[in-house]
């Protein structure tokens, strides 16, 4: 036999010999989907989360470690809506995994299952780093988590039908607790309704929509463009006529622009977790919103 063919046979035999009936391997692009998959799958799934709350999900390197995790994933759960356009396509193409290609049951883009806000009317790069399908930062509204949880449960059942009862049971339990928690958060956050805020990136439309906050400006002159001195000065002028209660930024963003604006614009900064792990309080999905609401309330006082 040709030595090349012989190697090929050995390699194929090695690849096929995977552990049977193992846990479902979930590759989550962002911490919120990793946390959700863990909640719904518990001991049936092995979850790998590609990014942390300290990283900007727009700018992640297609690292070798991510490629090798992609290779063995049974289910890839990402936000979609082009949030991961700078790195996920490379992982999908280099990961050599047919099960998780878009269109397969093993690929779940959360943004396809919720109502997207902030769909641009003009798609042009001069508008900054905009997302033609709408704002992808859907995890800042817990109602979206509830919707994705239902879809993710169905997907887990589809890929691992043997454990359907467990997935469904955990989903029911989660959905009940989640409904109650959302009602509580909404009640607690009611005093915030109508409050004016400035956000660092246009990453909070779902949060401001959920809690009824009014956004009077962004620190970034255009999405993805770092805050400039000139823009901050203009923003300061805006704040004179439309004062804002607080300046919101995510844990991964540079704190300096928001601090500058807060100190000059007679307002306060608030650092929100943005995703699971973003603050010490945001240990899981419940903690994420609990902490978000509490931090907003403290800042709004």
């Amino acid at each position, binding site marked *: 036999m040709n030595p090349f063919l012989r190697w090929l046979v050995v390699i194929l035999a090695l*690849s096929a010999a995977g552990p049977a009936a193992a846990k479902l391997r979930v590759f989550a692009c962002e911490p919120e989907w990793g946390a959700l998959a863990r909640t719904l799958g518990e001991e049936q799934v092995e979850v790998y989360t590609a990014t942390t709350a300290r990283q900007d999900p727009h700018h992640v390197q297609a*690292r*070798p470690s991510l*490629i090798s995790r992609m290779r063995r994933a049974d289910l890839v759960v990402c936000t979609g809506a082009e949030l991961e356009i700078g790195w996920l396509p490379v992982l999908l193409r280099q990961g050599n*995994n047919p099960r998780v290609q878009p269109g397969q049951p093993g690929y779940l883009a959360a943004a396809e*299952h919720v109502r997207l806000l902030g769909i641009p009317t003009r798609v042009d790069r001069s508008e900054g780093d905009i997302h033609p399908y709408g704002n992808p930062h859907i995890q800042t509204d817990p109602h979206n988590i509830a919707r994705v949880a239902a879809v993710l449960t169905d997907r887990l059942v589809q890929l691992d039908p043997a454990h359907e009862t467990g997935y469904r049971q955990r989903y029911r339990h989660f959905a009940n607790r989640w409904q109650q928690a959302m009602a509580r958060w909404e009640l607690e956050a009611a005093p915030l309704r109508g409050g004016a805020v400035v956000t660092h990136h246009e990453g909070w439309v779902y949060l401001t929509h959920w809690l009824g906050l009014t956004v009077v400006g962004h620190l970034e002159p255009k999405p993805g463009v770092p805050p400039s001195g000139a823009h901050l000065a203009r923003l300061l002028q805006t704040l004179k006529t439309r004062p804002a209660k607080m300046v919101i930024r995510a844990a991964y963003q540079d704190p300096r622009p928001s601090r500058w604006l807060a100190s000059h614009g007679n307002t306060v900064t608030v650092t929100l977790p943005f995703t699971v792990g973003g603050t010490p309080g945001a240990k899981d999905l419940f903690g994420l919103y609990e902490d978000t609401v509490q931090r907003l309330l403290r800042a709004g006082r």
Partner: protein
Amino acid sequence: MKRSVIAGGAALALCGPASHAAQQEDLAGIRAQIQQLRNDYQKRIDELEERLAQAEAQARSAQRSARRAEQVATAPAAVPPPAPKSANAYNPALSVILMGGVNAYSRDPGTYALPGFQLDSEAGLAEEGPTIGESELTFSANVDDQYYGSLTTAIHSPAGGATEVNIEEAYLEAPRLPAGLGVKFGRFYSGIGYLNSRHRHAWNFADAPLAYRAFLGGQYGDDGVQIRWLAPTDRFIELGGELLRGANFPGGGIGDSRFGARSLFAHTGGDIGISSSWRLGVSRLWSRPHAREGMANDAGVAASSFAGDSNLTGVDFVWKWAPAGNPYARNLVVQAELFRRDEAGRVTVNDTGMSTAYDGIQYGGYAQAVYQFMPRWRIGARYDWLSADNHGADPSVLTQAGLLDQGHKPSRYTLMMDFANSEFSRLRLQYDQDRSLPRTDRQWLFQYVMSLGAHGAHAF
């Protein structure tokens, strides 16, 4: 309800004192009334309990249908993409890269050479003065459910010369192969080395490392097939091989062999903590040029042709660091590549037809570091070197072909600074102290790299 029964009873019990007989009569009446009340309430309690049970059942089914409704509602609630109205909806993603600038050299670029190395026509210096350099056009799309295709053309229009359109890459991939296999066929940049498979606009310096000029004619792309296999392990391990036509430098001309070049490469990599990640690669390229053309220059190097074996072995390493793994504000990329080439065959000087047996062992490499110190701004430094140990039966032929280094080892120091207004645009200023030749060439390069349209993600 219980409370009202008790309250009723208590109110009755509190009715004032009276005579014993009347009391007896009253008591009987009261007892009857209480019994009456009790019956009434029991009936109403039963009714209410029944209604409650019904309501609960209804609520359960309502919840079920609500959940179903929610599932139905949420799926289409995801904003439906505008319905494709024409065949244009299937147009491939289109990306244009404009890459040009201004180059200034202290030496005449026409005299450029790398002593000890045959130089490909693509491997010289970029044109002096303002130039639009090379414009790149890429079309890519899924062909169907099995294939992905990509075409990259480079348009080069030198001042006063004819416009050339080259197909840099035209390949297909099959992303749905099982067992961790990946295949690519058509024309593509070989997977050897680190920089070689990356498009020039993604390189961190305006010009190619000297080792790439000397060993790969700038960058090695060819027609053929590539197979990659990814190990099913948490540690990244990738093995790959290519069968290529061997028509391009370091190959050249096709003799009897249908596949004039073959390659093997292996990559591994991983993370160190949350802030660092790395990749290490080894590669080997075997080529058997039939007639590889070496470029003449204005300083006496004659055009020559090489036939024989040319085997290139390389090691490449890259290490990337960013605080907490977030490269947006600050990051550092350190990379290095090392090559050794073994060549044996015959060299012929084209003009005179004189030829000689030749064999050589050559080394070359580069090391570079690029640091982004604040959003959008980066600085970088690079060191390049080459060394050749060539022998031939007739040294005068080697001298004419520029294959004897006369004791000079080429080297180069480079400093670079660039500014990226967004991830789609970059302006770069670079200074090279080029000691390719004994007299140092001081080179200033200003470069712009602009990316229009769809832009594919970059590999690590």
